[in-house]
């Protein structure tokens, strides 16, 4: 492995492993009822957020969904603020008023996550329009699930993005289920990219959530978008949610899917894959650092106070 490749692999592994372990820590803490927010975990889907965000620049911004822990962390969102937010503490990224489904870290380009499926799509397009109007060299990465593709807002948003050629990459994290509804019960054919191409947008599917493939795709197209050579691009990343739709548990015993259905994704786990690519001491050092950081973040959340009552009415409006 070349030095550059080793560096990149280590960097991607750190991000993947960190997200996985944070989510696992949440599942351990969740039964203690310290987390005052429903959690939609990213376990199994980390490679999409990491592959995309590692290829972005610091000035780029991301928009995402209620299943947004991975995106928030992969883009550099502050870990302590996130865990404190889940705990409902005043030190959280939204002072405890947003919770797990509404994470924000403007300083690191995380422009919010929404619980209403598809709603951030046109908003992210509007943000990209604003970037282009200001001749910024930043671009937008807009994350959503396959359920969002059912929504009118998706089609309204991508149509306008194509029309105005705004600087944006659309990332569909296709885990095949909108809550418990399989995507082929919600649409006639498995042809998302074909539908997107009909709007005049370059679209590509990546089947096995290969983190390097996603990284290379975004690296290549983000440069073309940034330099104004092309308009929006769409990437459909096939992936799998390993846990239940909401909550810390597995859900293979309820009849809507089986463990076998996601087996190929588990075998193809990018966290394990990258760990094996790295020399043992490098991986071990990263693991040690990440574990310490996670412990500190949860301790920070534990130690932080809840917001005062005065916060209830604060920030309803932005004053002049």
């Amino acid at each position, binding site marked *: 492995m070349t030095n550059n490749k080793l560096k990149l692999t280590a960097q991607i592994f750190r991000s993947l492993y960190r997200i996985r372990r944070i989510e696992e820590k949440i599942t351990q803490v969740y039964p203690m009822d310290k987390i005052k927010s429903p959690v939609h975990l990213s376990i199994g889907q980390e490679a999409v957020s990491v592959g995309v965000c590692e290829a972005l620049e610091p000035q780029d911004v991301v928009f995402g969904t209620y299943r947004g822990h991975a995106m928030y962390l992969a883009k550099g969102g502050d870990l302590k603020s996130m865990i404190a937010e889940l705990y409902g503490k005043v030190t959280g990224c*939204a002072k405890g*008023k947003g919770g797990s489904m509404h994470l924000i870290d*403007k300083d690191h380009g995380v422009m919010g996550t929404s619980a209403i499926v598809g709603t951030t799509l*046109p908003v992210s397009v509007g943000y990209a329009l*604003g970037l282009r109007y200001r001749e910024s060299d930043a671009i937008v990465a807009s994350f959503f699930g396959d359920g969002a593709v059912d929504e009118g807002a998706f089609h*309204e948003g991508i149509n306008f993005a194509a029309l105005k050629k705004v600087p944006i990459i659309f990332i569909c994290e296709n885990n095949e289920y909108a809550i418990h509804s399989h995507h082929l019960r919600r649409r006639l054919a498995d042809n998302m990219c074909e539908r997107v191409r009909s709007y005049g947008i370059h679209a590509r599917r990546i089947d096995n959530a290969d983190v390097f493939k996603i990284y290379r795709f975004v690296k290549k197209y983000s440069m073309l978008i940034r330099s104004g050579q092309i308009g929006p691009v769409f990437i459909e990343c096939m992936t799998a949610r390993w846990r239940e739709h909401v909550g810390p548990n597995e859900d293979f015993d309820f009849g809507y899917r089986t463990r076998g259905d996601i087996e190929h994704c588990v075998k193809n786990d990018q966290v394990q894959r990258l760990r094996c690519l790295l020399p043992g001491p490098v991986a071990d050092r990263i693991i040690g650092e990440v574990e310490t950081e996670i412990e500190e973040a949860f301790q920070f959340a534990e130690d932080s106070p809840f917001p005062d009552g005065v916060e209830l009415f604060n920030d*309803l*409006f932005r004053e*002049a």
Partner: protein
Amino acid sequence: MHRVLSYPDAIREALDQEMSRDDSVLVMGQGVDDHKRILGTTRGLLEKFGPQRVFDTPLAEDGMTGVAIGAAMAGLRPIHSHIRMDFVLLAMNQLVNMAAKMSHMYSGALCVPMVVRSLIGKSWGQGAQHSQSIYPMLMNVPGLKIVAPTTPYDAKGALIQAIRDNNPVLMIEHRLLYYQRGYVPEESYTIPFGKGRVLAEGTDVTLVGVSHMAIECLRAHRYLREVGIRAEVIDPVSLNPLDMDCIFKSATKTGKLIVVDNAWTPCGAGAEIIARIAENRMLSAIECRRMGFAFVPCPTTPTLEALFYPSAHKIATEAYAMLRPGSPAWEPTTRLDVEEVEFKGPF
């Protein structure tokens, strides 16, 4: 000499001045750059500011509201127009779930400085889907400001205030107010939100009229003068925030209050204002009435449409019955000079 402008020209001037002052101001919406230019209110803007700042949109009210929200988050100040307020119903998801929530949900990390302009239709058979006035639904949403200026002076001042506000503001423009002419200063100015106006002073009954109903209340005020009743007319101007002090003060003086909604009465501005009076023990003796649209969809035929809307005639009749209980019923004879109310100002 006080300069007189029409209501749409006052809006056009506000847009022109704000776009000249601040290059973050954009005008978007269906028809903003067509030959009609939203009844003239966006006239000349495309030519002066170009297609990056003045652009037509696809028929995608919800999506385009989202685009405006995103642009606002990126530091721009978009003004999104709807040629009929009925179409704002298609944008409710973005308005309520996104625009209204951003500042509070993220504890001030984000804000959405955007204006949504919406026109309300009336008469010439606008019918069930071109006449609706859905501000009561939106008064129920924390995080949205709502302004419904009645006079050309307030139209200009409110729009400039709305553009400079760092929050989503819904501006309601009644189509029939487009015939109003009145004093409008040439220079740029704002009017504060949450400040009602006493349009006519009186001592016997308080008439609060929302949007175009303020005009109907002014007409009723003139009819009532014929029978010796002095009605005070209040235009709340903004509905969120709502200037209850102005209404409390007047209703305390007159002891009688009629609120005329430019909408259906259930859960409307009238319901809200009268509930706040009922909650105030000092004001419990005030006699209150609500008026508004008949609680059915708006019909097109003129005979039924006339029954559907409150009018100066109906407001005067109601006020008279309230003030002179037991007297023989009275209703005004329509006078053309009263029906053509214009604001001469200045305020």
